Each structure stands twice: as structure tokens, then as C-alpha cells.
């Protein structure tokens, strides 16, 4: 049985890097991620590519042996913009057309592919208001979280460190979404909101241990990392399973892909991985700096 000596690895990590390295590297990553988002925003009008939920359109998945090329040609008069393999099935994506054309499309699909079809349709009206609501939701959640953090710790620098770490998690997760091609859907918005809640857990643990316990700083960080890494690893394990089952299980079974679960798990995996860096390097670094400065002030006073 492979046993991982977690503690040793943590101790060497804490000893190795200077505070400057701990803070600067994550900030650089944050900068890169922000520019990715900016680039996407300039090119498409929103920081992440919009899925059907937010752009409007129709997505239909069917059980058929027909090839995507064949399907694309077959449905060409219905504004089809894509046909691809999707697990054991095929997925067709359409832009919105008139009501009558849409009913026609549904009838045609029903007639040829029977009852085993999955359909999702969103009109533009809903999509635009949904976009606004999504932005509002993320903003409100983020601000609410920041307020709670400030109320708990009541000191400025540590609270800012936590909020900055959470912010960076989200930005990096969204940047990865853009790079890898994951679109903004209801599922990914839910994942981003969950990320706000999750990512703060490890930061709160770290800050609580550092501020409210006694002992040498490095010792406290090491102990906090032991707990914190375990926490993040367990969550990552659960999410990885979710990701594999919802994305790849079709290869070994009759199961199909479940996009909403894939979306949620991927975004969270990216975000939590970024959280490892943002909590135990950026946040930890800022806290170390803060506490060392406080200690110096006390020494200078006496």
C-alpha cells in the first residue's frame, strides 16, 4: 500500500519558498487569467462563451447510427449550426428560427427518431434576461461572502486576502473554461457559485488557525495545510468521479453523457485546483507577511 507522507512534503514546501515567491507567482497567474477573460470579452461580448441557456437556440440529442455530416445536411433548412458525436448518441445544435419552422423540426425529429430524443430549447427573450440574472447572482454571492468574511475576522488585511483568493479562483476557473471551450450554461453558473462557497473554506481554515492559535507561524501553516489539503483532495476525488462517470462512462456501458454534470464537475475541478495555489501560496504568503509585520511592530514598541 502506497503511503503518502503528506507532512514531510508540506514541511519542505513551507520551508522552500520565500514570501515573495508565494505571493507573486499566484498574482502573475491571476493576471494571465484575467487577460484571457478580457480577450474573450472583447471578442464575444461576454467573459465566457455563452451556451444555449444564455444565447438561445435548440439542442437535440438522438440515438442513431447516422453520421454527423449526414445529419447536418439532413437538417440544413432548420438553421443547424452543428452536429457531433456525443457519447453513444449524436447531438444537434440549432439557432432559433420561427415558431412554425421549430414545430416542423420537432415533428421531423419525432417521426424519424422516435421517442428516445432529448430536446432543449431556449428563446432569446429568456436568454438575455438569464444572462443578466446570472451576472447578478454571481455578484451578490461574491459580495455576500466577502461581507461574512469581514464579519468573522474583523481585520482588514486577512479578510482581503481571503476575498482575493476566492476572486482569483473564479477568474482562473473561467479562464480555463474559455481555453478548453466550456460554455457558460446554467450548470457552469451553479458551479461558479459553489466555487465561491467551497474555495473560501480552506482560506477560512488557514486564517482561523493563523490568527487565533498560538505557536510559530510556520508550524501553524504546516498543520493547517495538512487539514486543508485533505479537504481539497477529498472534494477533488468526488468531483473527478463525477466527471468521469458523466463524460466517459458511455465508452464502457449504455450510459450517455450528462452535460450538466460534466460542466459542474469540470469547472469545480479547475477552480479547486487553482484554490490550492491561491490558498496555500497567495493567502498564506499574505498572512505570513502580515503577521511578521505585526510582530515587528510589537518588537519595535517594547
Amino acid at each position: 500500500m502506497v503511503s503518502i507522507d503528506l507532512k514531510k512534503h508540506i514541511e519542505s514546501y513551507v520551508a522552500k519558498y520565500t514570501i515573495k515567491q508565494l505571493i507573486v507567482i499566484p498574482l502573475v497567474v491571476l493576471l494571465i487569467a484575467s487577460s484571457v477573460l478580457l480577450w474573450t470579452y472583447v471578442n464575444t461580448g461576454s467573459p465566457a462563451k455563452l451556451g444555449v441557456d444564455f444565447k438561445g437556440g435548440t439542442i437535440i440529442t438522438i440515438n442513431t447510427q447516422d453520421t454527423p455530416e449526414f445529419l447536418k445536411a439532413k437538417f440544413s433548412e432548420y438553421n443547424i449550426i452543428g452536429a457531433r458525436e456525443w457519447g453513444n448518441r449524436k447531438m444537434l445544435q440549432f439557432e432559433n428560427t420561427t415558431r412554425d419552422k421549430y414545430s416542423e423540426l420537432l415533428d421531423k425529429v419525432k417521426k424519424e427518431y422516435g421517442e428516445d430524443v432529448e430536446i432543449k430549447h431556449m428563446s432569446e427573450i429568456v436568454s438575455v434576461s438569464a444572462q443578466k440574472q446570472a451576472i447578478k447572482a454571481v455578484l451578490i454571492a461574491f459580495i455576500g461572502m466577502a461581507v461574512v468574511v469581514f464579519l468573522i475576522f474583523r481585520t482588514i488585511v486577512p479578510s482581503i486576502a481571503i476575498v482575493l483568493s476566492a476572486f482569483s479562483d473564479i477568474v482562473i476557473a473561467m479562464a480555463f473554461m474559455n481555453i478548453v471551450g466550456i460554455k457558460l450554461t446554467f450548470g457552469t453558473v451553479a458551479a461558479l457559485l459553489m466555487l465561491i462557497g467551497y474555495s473560501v473554506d480552506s482560506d477560512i481554515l488557514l486564517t482561523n488557525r493563523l490568527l487565533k492559535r498560538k505557536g510559530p507561524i510556520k508550524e501553524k501553516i504546516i498543520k493547517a495545510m495538512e487539514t486543508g489539503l485533505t479537504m481539497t483532495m477529498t472534494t477533488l476525488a468526488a468531483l473527478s468521479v463525477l466527471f468521469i462517470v458523466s463524460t466517459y462512462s458511455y465508452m464502457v456501458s449504455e450510459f450517455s453523457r450528462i452535460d450538466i454534470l460534466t460542466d459542474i464537475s469540470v469547472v469545480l475541478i479547475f477552480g479547486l485546483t487553482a484554490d490550492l495555489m491561491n490558498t496555500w501560496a497567495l493567502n498564506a504568503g499574505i498572512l505570513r507577511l502580515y503577521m511578521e509585520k505585526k510582530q515587528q511592530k510589537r518588537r519595535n514598541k517594547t
Partner: protein
Amino acid sequence: MTNGLLKDIRIIVFLIAIFASLIAIAIYPPPPEGKNTNLKFGLDLEGGSWLQLKLIGSIVQIDVDRDKIIAYQFSELLNDSIDITNSELNSISFTTTSPHSKDEIKKFANSLGYTTNTVSQKGNLKNVTLYELNSDEIIRSYLEKRLSAEVKPIRWNNRPAYEIRSNITKEKLINILEPVGGRIKHDSKGNLLFEERVTKETLDSTKDILSDKLNVLGLKEIPIRTVGSEYILIDLAGVDITTAESIVSKPGKFEIRIQTEKNETAHVLYGDNIERVGIPLQDNEGVWGVGFTLNKEGAKKLRDAAIKYGAVDNPELHELSMYLDNRLVYSAPLAPELAKNIKKVPVTDMVARTGTGEEGRARAKELQIHLSAGALPVQVEVIGSGQVSAALGAMFREQTAIAGILALLAVSLVVYLRYHQKKILLPMLFTSLSEVVMILGFASIIGWQLDLPSIAGIIAVIGTGIDHLVIITDEVLYEGRLPPTRIYLSRISKAFAIIFAAATTTIIAMSPLLIMGFGVLKGFAIIAIVGVLIGVFIARPAYGRVIKEVLSEK
């Protein structure tokens, strides 16, 4: 050892919660036929379709002068100009040089609804005075006639406003307000007080009527949710999408209107005044028709309208038209005897004639369907829809269950790698599992429909749950071994301080989803929040107690 454990209040609460959940899930109330549990599943996991409906209408605040409306109305009818001589709250006087006789002018005034009036003549000048005026009603009825739509007075932000129950654009409204010097009001920021949505009351009553309609068709317990103040979301489990769309769009807005002048019509009554609809029948002359019966209120409305707009005297010029979703489906004058009878008393039994031959029969059948359609106060438009087949739903159920089990196993692996002790792993696993059971129990009790986002929420709860258990364990073992009892208790409270903080941020992060409308993600938010609460207040305290016992036996 165990006696102390079982007496602890946390353990007692925990055990009660688990048993209650298991009972709620599988035993009481007894699961419905054909199912093993009381768990209800949403569309994604059971198959069916969903529809998102937009209610068509607008609300607006208007600034307009009643006098200008009256002047405009009369000058149009008389083809001559009007000079207002006196204007009071409840009355108005004006003069005109129009050649129309006094009686004609009186008739015009009646037809416009100003039934209390006097007309006198002095030389060339006719002097008209209208009494018992209700300014709001005048404005409202002007809007209604000109827009050919139902206009309802409402209060918006505590100011008088109107709800226009039809697809009216801002431009069209401005067009009919212009001739009478009216305009749409602005708010303090300069925005036009015109919004394309209906009032909450209208939204709710449409939702109720739809609910009744669906129940009548044998579809019970259809979740109909309102999304924000604009949309209605309907989940029809077990129904395919084309059937769903036709069921929902069939309860059309049925209206009978009467022709007032040339191209204008006035509202008479809605489908809810129709008590019974007969089957298509042919009469002695081979003319097809559909009989229908109005209720007392409807009969009175019809008679009042027929008299007011002159249909009793001149049926040909004042046809009755029937509209379904603002589309004309039938138009005919009152038959001569009907016109005569209705003058004396309200008539409830009517026949709408559709013509002879095959065409007449077909049209009669169509008309029967239209007449039977219930009355929604407004038209609805299907703006979003989706369908999951039952087979697919069942597969998703299996798939997510397997995902959940595998996730627990993966998590156990990580926990074991960290602690290397079965003693810690087993209680953690059990606590996690029990949290899931309790969430499912809660879902069963409130009848919550589990959908894919809810399942994602459950897996998230497993994740956070284990996180918190790790925090507790590490706090207790801070010095590498179990501390004496009093220190143990203080450690536990320190751990809980962190846990409470973390739980609060999770709840705050999920709250926007509860209130905002995606509709779809509400389940996810509820499960996540309820899961966190169950964990923090029931499962984790119990774990804290158990772990002490487990670790202290060496």
C-alpha cells in the same frame, strides 16, 4: 462506553433524524403504486417535457387629459370641431356647430358610453353637457377601444396605471395617445414607465387557471412555477413535448367582441362566461352550427352590449365576432329573432352558425374546440421547452446513483490514505452516507422533485460534509492524540467555529439561486443549503461525539 454514547443528546437527535428519514423515504406515507420509495423525480430523471411560457401584456403609466379624449371622440364622430366651455370633475360641457340633429348627437353620446347627457340648441350652436363622468374609466375605455385589447386599471409603484393584455408595442401606444395629447409617463431617472410584462396578480391567476386546466385533463400535481414576474415554468412529467405544447396552448384566450363603428370592436365577454358548449349540429335547412350556453352574467353582458352598440336595432352593422388568442375565428350578426328577443330579456342559449356542407361541418367542429377553450386572462407564448424521454430518464437515474457510490469510494480512499485508520474512516463514511439519507428524507417529506441539478447538489454535500469532518478530526487530534475531555470539548468548539463560518459562506453563495429565476437551478440550491444545515446541526455534532469514543478505545 456505549451507554454514555447513547445518552448524548447529539446522538439521539442524529438517530431520530436518520430513522425519520428512512421512514419518510420508504415506509410512511406508503409509496405510490409501482414505486418503491416516496422519492419524486423531476423530468431529467423520469422523462417528460417542460415548457417556459411568457405572458403577453404590458403595464404602463399614462399622462392624459380626459377632456382632450372627449373632444377627440366627439369631433371624430360629428366630423366637426368641439369647443369646451366648462369642465368639472364629473361633468363637461362643450358646443359644436355640427349639422347633426339633437337626437343624433344624443345617440352618439350614448354609443360612446356617456349615457347621462343633455343636448340643447341655440341657433346654430348645439350645447352638449355630459354628466356622471368617471375620468379613469373614460381613459381606460378609450385605450381599450383604440387598442382592441383588454385594459385593466392597476396600481404600479402605488400610482394608477394600466395593464394592457395584448401584444402592444410602445410605438402603437404612443400613436393612439398622440391625437389626444397624451404621453407615457417617465420616472425620476427619465425611463419610460412602460414594461412588457403583466402584474403579479395576473401572473398568479394565469398560473392557477393553467393548473386547473391541466388537472381537468387528468394531469395531477403538475409543478407550475413562476419565474421572476414574467414567466411560467411547467414540468409535465410523462408527457411528450408536442402534446405538452398543444395542451398548454389550447386553453386560448377566447373573447366575444361586438362591432361598434366600421372597424372598431368592443369587448363583450370572455370564455369564462360560457357555461356549456354543444356539439356541431345541422338544423332543418342543412346549416351547421354549434350551440352554446352563456351563464347569467354572460347573457347580461351580451344583452347590454347589444343594446348599447345598437345591435338590437341594426344587427347587420354590429356583428358579433369571436376571437381566440386575438385571432378572429368567427363573425356573424345576431339573427333577427334573437335581436328582437334580446331587446326584452337576456338570452342564454345561442347558436353560432357556420354554413352548409362539408365546409360548414368542419368549421363547426373547429368552432366547438374554440368555444370549449378555457379563458386565460392573457395570451401565453412558449419561449422555452425541453423533453427527456422516459428511457433516458431511467438511465440517468442509474448513472447518477453509480456516480454517487463511486464518489463515496473515491473519497474514502483519500481519507484512508491520510489517516490510515479504519476507526476514523468508517465513522466518516457512515456520517456522510447518513447525511445523504437525511437529505433524501427531507426531499420525500416536502415532496421535492429530484432532478439532475439536485443530484449534483447532493454530491456537493458529500464533498463539503467530508471536509468538515476532516476539520473536526484534525482539530481533535491537534497534538497527535486524543486530549483529555475538557480540552476535547474546547477543541470541538474551535472546529465548529470554522465549520459555521464555512457553512455560512456556502449558504450565502447559494442563496441568489433560490430567489433568482433560473427555475432549473432552484433544486440545486435548496439541496445544497438544506444539506449544509443538516450537516452542521445534526450529522457533524454526532460525529464529533462518536469520534471521541472511537479514538479513546485503544
